[in-house]
């Protein structure tokens, strides 16, 4: 969803070692952000260590024990429509769901920042052309653009990542451009330029350190949207293909079970929800921690 686009006012940050230390201290004192971080660490660790943590093989199906309830002997969280262990599939599912949620934001962070910083630093006519092009992409609601691109490119993990990256690049570029434009007009940047330093050096030394922080905070707020969208694509059948465990796809295949095993059917969505809200709360905490100046 483009929900985050309505609140893109970037914050200012001044980069010095002491600054980041104090951000860290403030974060540590924020119980909500720390709680969210703890949940994320657990989910990520479980996904990474899945082969060691998962109690059963996530692909092993048994038609005799289909759709068992939560707490059924041998199936702590029940079994799915093909008799596969839900707990193991949820643990393994985190791998693809997290990957497909985080990678587009990372890619968009790199590409969008480059475009935005370039446009903001160069300014003038080039800036106008770049930003008007970006406006075109803002004319599409994010969900629509992501689904349209995935629909045309076809189902698959790579195609989903490509579509989501295309959705987030304009959003990050717009934030990057606005922060860079602000920083560019500062005295120290003007002074560096006047002293004859070449553009790349000025950007590297004076601009990057001041703009990457705010862009990064904005990017972290997109991860939750990206998670929901990525799983949504799989839910529609446009992302991961069966039998891979992925939360969105699992939610889709379990839709038929809402009458027989409603609790089991709702579990994959609960995981998406938990992850997405944790990313949101952590991102909010990071924003608050960085907003306060020294």
């Amino acid at each position: 969803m483009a929900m985050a686009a309505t609140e893109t006012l970037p914050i200012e940050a001044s980069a010095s070692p002491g600054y980041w230390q104090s951000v860290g201290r403030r974060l540590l004192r924020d119980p909500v952000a720390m709680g969210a971080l703890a949940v994320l660490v657990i989910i990520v660790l479980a996904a990474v260590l899945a082969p060691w943590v998962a109690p059963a093989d996530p692909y092993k199906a048994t038609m005799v024990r289909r759709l068992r309830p939560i707490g059924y002997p041998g199936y702590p969280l029940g079994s799915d429509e093909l008799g596969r262990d839900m707990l193991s599939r949820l643990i393994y599912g985190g791998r693809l769901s997290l990957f497909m949620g985080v990678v587009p934001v990372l890619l968009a962070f790199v590409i969008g920042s480059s475009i935005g910083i370039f446009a903001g630093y160069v300014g003038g006519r080039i800036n106008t052309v770049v930003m008007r092009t970006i406006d075109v992409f803002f004319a599409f609601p994010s969900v629509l653009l992501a689904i349209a691109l995935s629909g045309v490119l076809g189902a698959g993990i790579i195609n989903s990542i490509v579509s989501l990256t295309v959705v987030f690049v304009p959003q990050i570029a717009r934030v990057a451009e606005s922060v860079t434009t602000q920083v560019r007009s500062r005295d120290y940047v003007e002074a560096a330029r006047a002293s004859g330093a070449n553009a790349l050096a000025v950007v590297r030394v004076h601009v990057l350190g001041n703009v990457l922080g705010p862009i990064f905070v904005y990017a972290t707020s997109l991860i939750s949207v990206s998670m929901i969208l990525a799983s949504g694509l799989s839910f529609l059948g446009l992302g991961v293909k069966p039998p891979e465990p992925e939360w969105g796809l699992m939610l889709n295949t379990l839709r038929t079970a809402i009458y027989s095993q409603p609790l089991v059917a709702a579990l994959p969505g609960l995981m998406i929800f938990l992850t997405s809200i944790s990313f949101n709360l952590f991102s909010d905490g990071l924003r608050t921690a960085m907003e306060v100046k020294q």
Partner: protein
Amino acid sequence: MIAYTLKRILYVTPVALGVSLVCFLLVHLAPGDPLTAVMPIDATAEQQAEMRALYGFDKPLPVQYGIWLWKVLQGDLGTSIASGRPVALEVGRAVGNSLILAAVATLIGFTFGTLFGFVAGYFRNSMVDKLASAVSVLGVSVPHYWLGMVLVIIFSAHLGWLPPTGAGPDGSGSWQPDAEHLRYLILPALTMSAIPMGIIARTVRALVAEILSQDFVQALRAKGLGEWGVFKHVVRNAAPTALAVMGLQLGYLLGGSILIETVFAWPGTGFLLNAAIFQRDLPLLQGTILVLAMFFVVLNLVVDVLQTLLDPRIQRS
């Protein structure tokens, strides 16, 4: 005011052209030829060339775009490959259903969002404020397709109060304003309202808090104006932004309804888009996206102009 409106229209025109270009190119992004889906596998190279010429795919891309745009401007969005009906007809039929759903959802979201936002902004750091913040975080974090499923589980599967899918009894293809159809609208509309509710609550809370901290509110109180009077001033100042956010949310919901419409089998544009994707009905896909994106562009324009009308101080450059 009229000058400003004209200026905005002038500014929106290149964006609209860009949108049409993206929609046009989308079809050419597709692997293979746009005709692959309709062409029999055993068609000879000659027959394929004939088909290509018939649909104009043998011409250079810019020329194709020109021809396509000219047709679109006359209301011709091409023909659906799956149904053989004009795309404009199919989209026109679905757009009404989507609009009803999105409008009702926005209305619910706006009502509760402003309510939460106002109370939270007025009593900052109170329990209500914390509750409102929680509601807004939940609203933006919940995967709405899952929320839809959960509501179906509770109200249809478990309690049996409301129908789980469709827009009306006996699978009627379009929504009607009567009591029976209303029951079908409740669950999808509630599901959809979660997102704007969270965002509007967040916006209004920040707005109200900011307005209350301004000097003029102190001045109003100092001259002895009662709380009700102050409240009216706050509403007057918060309204333009809140309404603008509401307008944009309507656009997002309309364009982003595909997941919810799929969960509830709601016969709107999202459902149509879903069908178009899986039948590889590219003209229908293209037409639906174009209509939704254009609606969003126009809505943005209207919101922008209305906002300036309500509060002439904000004229965007």
